[in-house]
């Protein structure tokens, strides 16, 4: 199968959806700009015209309400925020209006809107361009929240999100945009609300999502070689959450580590651990653990940021401590040196900024 990057797979999902349904439109600041939102909307304006690829004023709140008004009449808008933080200006519309409109109309009106939110990270993005705010949206009944970790899932989930008759918040981690994966050319759907077991194992269940999955997968082989077989679950959808897949896995492994893309306090990881302890507390051999970014604001300087972001070293240490397996110290340090965990503010070693 051919390989394409995550951002190209997003563009394919948008293109195929717009070809399939004339009511699908793109809206947002920069959707027609020369860079086309990190390549994800590049040239779509030329292909579909200005009625379907709509440049907007810098007015996030109104644009979200406008999308709602058009959606209840029949349009299927896709909004885009180049950083999650800009969407905060439209929280009123998202939380009070979009999520509740179907309910408030007693089922008579529907709100088929996708809001793409791009999470920034690293390269000095600082306090207001690096936040993973998935949990704010996952708290709200009526919203669906999707956060793919790879190019294949991004295409299938985005196509499905656009077909969905509810507001869907679609998180794209900026660091994933450049990672390639096997992606079929044709259109395909991935069901919203279904997690995926990406690695089967018996020693520990690791639940994670979005870019954090990349951090986990970086150490997977090393774990296996050293006799630890983790079962790794990619949540893919954060609301509605796939409780069944998580619970069934923990029933088997009896140990749980959640790797959060964001702060752990009141976070997605808190929710996952609650789900497990509420339903199968007695099955657990060890207390469930979580790991996420440091519970402080993310600073710009790389020397400070490296203490804040997730990194594979911390994840490895945590897995070792929960499973109780001994791994030769020398071997471990050699491995960590090789994967270079000291620079956690860039996606890979030879990365050149800016984003």
């Amino acid at each position: 199968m051919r390989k394409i990057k995550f951002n190209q797979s997003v563009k394919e999902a948008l293109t195929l959806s717009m070809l399939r349904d004339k009511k699908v439109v793109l809206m947002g600041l920069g959707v027609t700009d020369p860079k086309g939102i990190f390549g994800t909307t590049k040239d779509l304006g030329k292909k579909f015209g200005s009625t379907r690829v709509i440049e907007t004023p810098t007015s996030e709140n109104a644009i979200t309400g406008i999308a709602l008004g058009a959606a209840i009449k029949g349009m299927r808008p896709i909004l885009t925020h180049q950083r999650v933080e800009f969407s905060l200006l439209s929280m009123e519309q998202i939380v009070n209006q979009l999520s509740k409109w179907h309910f408030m109309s007693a089922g008579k009106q529907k709100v088929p809107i996708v809001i793409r939110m791009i999470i920034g990270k690293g390269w000095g993005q600082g306090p207001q361009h690096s936040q993973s705010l998935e949990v704010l949206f996952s708290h709200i009944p009526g919203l669906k929240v999707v956060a793919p970790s790879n190019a294949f899932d991004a295409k299938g989930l985005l196509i499905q999100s656009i077909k969905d008759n509810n507001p869907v918040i679609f998180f794209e981690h900026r660091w994933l945009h450049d990672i390639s994966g096997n992606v079929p050319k044709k259109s395909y759907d991935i069901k919203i609300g279904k997690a995926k077991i990406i690695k089967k194992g018996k020693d520990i269940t690791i639940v994670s999502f979005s870019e954090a999955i990349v951090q986990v997968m970086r150490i997977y082989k090393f774990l296996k070689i050293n006799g630890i077989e983790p079962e790794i679950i990619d949540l893919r959808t954060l609301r509605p959450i796939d409780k069944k897949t998580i619970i069934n896995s923990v029933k088997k492994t009896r140990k749980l580590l959640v790797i959060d893309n964001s702060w752990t306090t009141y976070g997605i990881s808190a929710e996952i651990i609650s789900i497990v302890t509420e339903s199968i507390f007695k099955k657990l051999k060890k207390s469930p653990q979580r790991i996420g970014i440091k519970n402080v604001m993310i600073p710009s300087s790389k020397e400070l940021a490296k203490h804040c972001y997730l990194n594979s070293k911390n994840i490895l240490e945590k897995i070792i401590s929960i499973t109780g397996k001994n791994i030769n110290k020398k071997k471990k340090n050699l491995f960590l040196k090789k994967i270079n965990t000291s620079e956690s503010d860039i996606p890979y070693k030879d990365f050149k900024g800016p984003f």
Partner: protein
Amino acid sequence: MNKLYRDLYKKIYKIRCVEKKISTMYKHQEMRCPVHLSIGQEAVAAGVCANLGKKDEIISTHRSHAHYLGKGGNLKNMIAELYGKDKGCAKGLGGSMHLQDLDNGIFGSVPIVGSTIPIGVGIAFYSKFFLKKNNITTIFFGEGATEEGVFHESINFASLHKLPILFVCENNLYSVYTGLKDRQHVNRSIKKIVESNGIESHTSTGNDVLDVYSLAKESINKIRKKKGPIFLEFKTYRWLEHCGPNWDDNLNYRPKGELKSWMNKCPLKKLRGKIFSNSKKNNTLDKIEKKINYEIENAFQFAKNAKFPKKEILNKFIYSN
């Protein structure tokens, strides 16, 4: 009697009497939701809506009863909604602040000030670029909403895309208990603000329904000829408390005599005066009033007799299929 006078009278009288009935019945504590009554402000809703067709859309605010009734919203379903019953226009899920009636072009109302303004703009955006029909969207809001950022964002977008929208601002001088002088600079002109966004704007008295009617008519004709949005500000006044069935002049947040002077400009009395100066016979009005009174009695009976929604409904509308 002139047909226009008759239609306008029907609307104003109906709004006034429905609101009075709610105000009387509220003490029984069976309408367990906040109500923001429109007594004193009926002329704007009546005069504007008399120019709109069934398919034209409106969207409104927390104080939406007059707009809903003016646009021809179903009275029985409205009262049932206030009683929290399953026959309510939103099956009891919304209450007074979430009235809607899609069959009559009433798409919704919400209590967050200014929030329906962009939603109305979106409806008009769809009409212009996708539906390609000649209907227009009327967005009702108060002067408080013009202090919200989303208002400014929305009028800019509407103007940029020349959307078929009638913006109707009912300036009743108060946002809850806070008067204009504490909220807007004395020189601030809402009309000028909107004008500077490239939108034709007018300001007018809002208690003479014939004035409202003609200004709205002229504006709507222009909008239908694809001239883009128009903004109208009407000066009016709410008689009762911000939220609830009672008078509240005893709280003294409004200057002494202000209420009285506005009550002298009662929209219902004004229209009645005009009708009587044109025709001496009043039995037509009697007939109209009788019919409406009967309709209101029926609607309250209907609402009281209706059942409460079953709890299964709670999970039914979280997501759409």
